[in-house]
């Protein structure tokens, strides 16, 4: 299995994972990447930033497990998952998932699957900062329904 997981405080590059997935190989036919960003509107209309808390140890294990599940279900050549923690400003990337496969459908579906599972299983919690104060972001039922598709 070629699965890489990273949880870090520092910002990451928008192209994270791409070169790594393609390094020293030419059998990859498709790379699908998803980048999640901090929006300036969510539960409050003017979000000034957010702080992401996680459960060190369990976070990494959960992400690896989700990557392995994707590996079992689709024909993949590589998976990279990176997630930031700590303070982020609007526009900052929070998460990036990149999946390599020989044919595009596997990569598209596996990437979608990994994000759905990450959003409903990985122990991350967002606290949004807005003019009116700080508050913890509520979970969304739609995320649960999305994860049930697989």
């Amino acid at each position, binding site marked *: 299995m070629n699965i890489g997981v990273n949880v870090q405080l520092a910002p990451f590059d928008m192209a994270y994972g791409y070169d790594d997935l393609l390094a020293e190989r030419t059998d990859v036919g498709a790379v699908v990447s998803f980048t999640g960003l901090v929006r300036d509107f969510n539960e409050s209309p003017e979000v000034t930033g957010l702080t992401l808390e996680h459960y060190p140890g369990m976070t990494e294990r959960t992400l690896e497990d989700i990557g392995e599940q994707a590996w079992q279900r689709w024909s993949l050549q590589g998976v990279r998952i990176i997630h930031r923690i700590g303070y982020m400003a609007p526009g900052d990337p929070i998460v990036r998932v990149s999946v390599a496969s020989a044919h595009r459908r596997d990569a598209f579906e596996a990437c979608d699957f990994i994000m759905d599972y990450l959003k409903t299983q990985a122990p*991350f919690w967002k606290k949004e900062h807005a003019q009116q104060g700080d508050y913890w972001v509520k979970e969304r039922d739609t995320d649960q329904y999305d994860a049930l598709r697989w």
Partner: protein
Amino acid sequence: MQLTHLNVRGEANMVDVGDKQATRREAVATGRIVMQPQTLKLLVDGALPKGDVIATARIAGIQAAKRTHELIPLCHSLSLSKVALDFDIDEQNGCVHVEAMCRLSGQTGVEMEALTAVSVACLTLYDMCKAVDKSMRIDAVQLESKQGGKSGDYQRDGNGYETTSPIVTGAGAAGEVRIGERCVSPCVRVKFLAELRERLGENEATISLDEMESRDVGGLKAALARRSEVFSALSDRRTLCAVNQVMANDNAPVTDDDEVAFFPPVTGG
């Protein structure tokens, strides 16, 4: 339960109160207006262009209570014996809390008067401050209590808007809950994460295995709940649990030196 303001055909209907006993009626309503911290400061300092905001809003609220029957179609006109408005400036949450109390001796309740007084007082606050802040928000207008009348007394449970608005958290939150001393005998280490940690005011706890009737997550929850009422929140359907960093339910066994974490639904990605 029937709506007394509708007749059998479902048409609007003013209730005949002529035969009702006159009793002492009282109602308390609250609401709030949320504003920018700078606006609130100007209000406190009396530096807003339209002058004394609170005094004006108080008069507006009293006047409104007296004229409720002109605004709400099926309300009776009442001769109120008392209307009082209270304003509480809340700098921490950037808002002004408004409370209105209306009282009379009569045949019909005064909750509409109290709600109208709060609403108009909030609208007046908006009007007085809108030159400097258009983003103000009026919310959580609600009946707190009423006494007297056929339908009996009413008291709102808990604090109405605190439960519906987003959970506003302080910096780490000062803990009020007392946790027992570290145990020397076999024990379970418990962690509380994210919003749950701030709600409980606790990061972690240590529970001796001897305190647990059953050596599983359910037994741990029961042991914590015996220590303090606040830990009953752990039995919420929303609260999740992991034993040694693996998701677990109430039947999951726990043993000496296990790490058990409780946390709210995840919101990453």
